[in-house]
């Protein structure tokens, strides 16, 4: 089986086993063994919560650094509108784009405008769609991975429209090839990303195709030089007329996708717990009166991405004020979008496949036996979910014991109880729980 590329990686030399990551993982993919965190690869859905929780920078995002792109003749920084929210609200997007050019990219390309185009394409899709509802937004890579793993019956509800970053990358590359007479592979399109999950979407797209993007740099990694470049420009140059406009500017805030649509009934959900609750409802056949559900792994939408620098609430405020000032003027011609939509300009061939977590055993009889053993082991455990064994819950520890990933002696409560019994009873009578 192919190994999955993941958005984060543990640096064992930095990990001191404080287990902050252990409990925040929504899929219980982390174990701490011999004092070091490990990620169970096939369980990880790239949400980045562990990296956010670690105070020792022992879990780091797998993004790129600028030097990796030196082989390209021409580089374009692809700017997520999240970046606009990382500055004071009077700093205009065009100034920030100019700043991106100043810190070393040959050009900077805004993604907000592509977001508006994608919103219009979704409107077209919704208007023609006659299947079961609600449809789901496919733009948060972590949510797509969650659906592939836990809600495979909902895969067909993911709207088969490409993400704004891919559309923008394809457009800007084609434009630059024409303008500069460069070949495809001579242009490096690099996404300035608010979260590590986008890196996975670039390296391993959900569908069988290659990304139009060559790599991703964390917003937090370029922020310092960019801030100096932007401050210098604000002090020295008069404001130019703003070129970035439209409702796509609002995409990074929770509800931004919904407010750029014409759909009458839609819903925006942020945070993995809440998203799972809504997905459960949808899987039960409820919420059929809603057309579109925008889902984000992060509670505040992409504003709350783990590779941003600003406070998510402040970023939200800044973005909303940009939308109030610049959102009303559309940057796209609806008629043209309709034509492009009909030519399948926004759609992707192929299907998103399900990728369930591996069952306990390939043989169903053995899997049932193992689940039974897990249950019995769990009943013997203290069920206080202390995490001292290095598994996040007693149930996940029971699974580790049955699957021979951990010895039962790793449960400190049981071991202490056993030692106490051994001290008070004749040798040979001590047992561990009811196992």
């Amino acid at each position, binding site marked *: 089986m192919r190994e999955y590329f993941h958005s984060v990686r543990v640096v064992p030399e930095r990990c001191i086993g404080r287990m902050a990551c252990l409990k925040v993982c929504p899929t219980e993919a982390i174990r701490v063994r011999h004092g070091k965190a490990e990620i169970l690869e096939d369980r990880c859905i790239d949400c980045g919560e562990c990296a956010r929780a670690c105070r020792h920078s022992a879990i780091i995002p797998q993004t790129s650094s600028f030097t990796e792109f030196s082989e390209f003749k021409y580089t374009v920084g692809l700017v997520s509108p999240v970046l606009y929210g990382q500055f004071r609200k009077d700093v205009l997007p065009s100034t920030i784009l100019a700043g991106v050019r100043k810190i070393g990219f040959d050009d900077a390309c805004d993604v907000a405008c592509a977001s508006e185009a994608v919103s219009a394409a979704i409107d077209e899709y919704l208007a023609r769609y006659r299947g079961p509802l609600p449809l789901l937004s496919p733009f948060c890579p972590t949510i797509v991975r969650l659906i592939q793993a*836990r809600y*495979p*019956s909902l895969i067909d509800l993911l709207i088969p429209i490409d993400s704004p970053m891919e559309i923008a990358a394809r457009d800007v590359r084609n434009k630059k090839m024409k303008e500069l007479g460069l070949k495809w592979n001579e242009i490096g399109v690099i996404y300035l990303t608010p979260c590590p999950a986008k890196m996975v979407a670039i390296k391993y797209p959900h569908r069988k195709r290659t990304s139009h993007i060559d790599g991703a740099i964390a917003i937090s990694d370029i922020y310092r030089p960019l801030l100096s470049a932007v401050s210098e420009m604000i002090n020295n140059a008069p404001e130019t007329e703003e070129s970035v406009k439209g409702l796509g500017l609002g995409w990074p805030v929770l509800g931004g996708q919904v407010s750029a649509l014409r759909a009458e009934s839609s819903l925006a959900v942020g945070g993995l717990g809440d998203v799972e609750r809504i997905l*459960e409802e949808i*899987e*039960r*056949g409820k919420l059929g009166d809603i057309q579109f559900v925008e889902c984000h792994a992060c509670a505040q939408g992409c504003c709350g991405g783990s590779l941003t620098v600003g406070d998510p609430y402040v970023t939200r405020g800044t973005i909303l004020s940009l939308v109030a000032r610049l959102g009303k003027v559309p940057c796209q011609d609806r008629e043209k979008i309709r034509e492009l939509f009909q030519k399948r300009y926004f759609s992707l061939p192929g299907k998103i496949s*399900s990728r*369930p*977590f591996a*069952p*306990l*055993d*390939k043989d*169903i*009889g*053995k*899997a*049932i*036996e193992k*689940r*039974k053993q897990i*249950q019995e082991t769990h009943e013997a455990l203290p069920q206080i979910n202390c995490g001292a064994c290095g598994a996040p819950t007693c149930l996940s520890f029971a699974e580790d014991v049955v699957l021979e990933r951990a010895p039962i002696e790793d449960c400190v409560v049981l071991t202490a109880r056993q030692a106490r019994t051994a001290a008070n009873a004749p040798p040979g009578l001590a047992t561990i729980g009811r196992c």
Partner: protein
Amino acid sequence: MPSEPLFWQRFDICGRDFVGAGKASITIKGILREIGVSSSLIRRAAIASYEAEMNVVLYATKGTMELKVTPKDIRVMVEDEGPGIPDIELAMREGYSTASDEIREMGFGAGMGLSNIKKNADDFIIRSLVGKGTTLEITFRL
């Protein structure tokens, strides 16, 4: 002869407990996923057990839900202490409901519960005694 593999778990359900409502069927879904049941069957079992669980929460005082999994079938058995159903045939009809306004305001009680269970199950047995309670036996074949 060795006995066939069997997984068994029981869940307690409290009537009117809207905070805990749905937890048993979500747990059942997780267990079936771990065992490696196909996703379409998981979905059917999840819908049926959710409807059964909600019936206990909405109408009964308390109840239990039991899950039994063998390599041949999945069985969900629900037993409650509650008002019981006087006319089962009528209650099985789509849209028939005895739900109070309060329940309807919460978005439940559309009269689809029992028919939804039947639609998703391979086998469905329902017994009820007025004033005592109701038992359901829902079977899915693997």
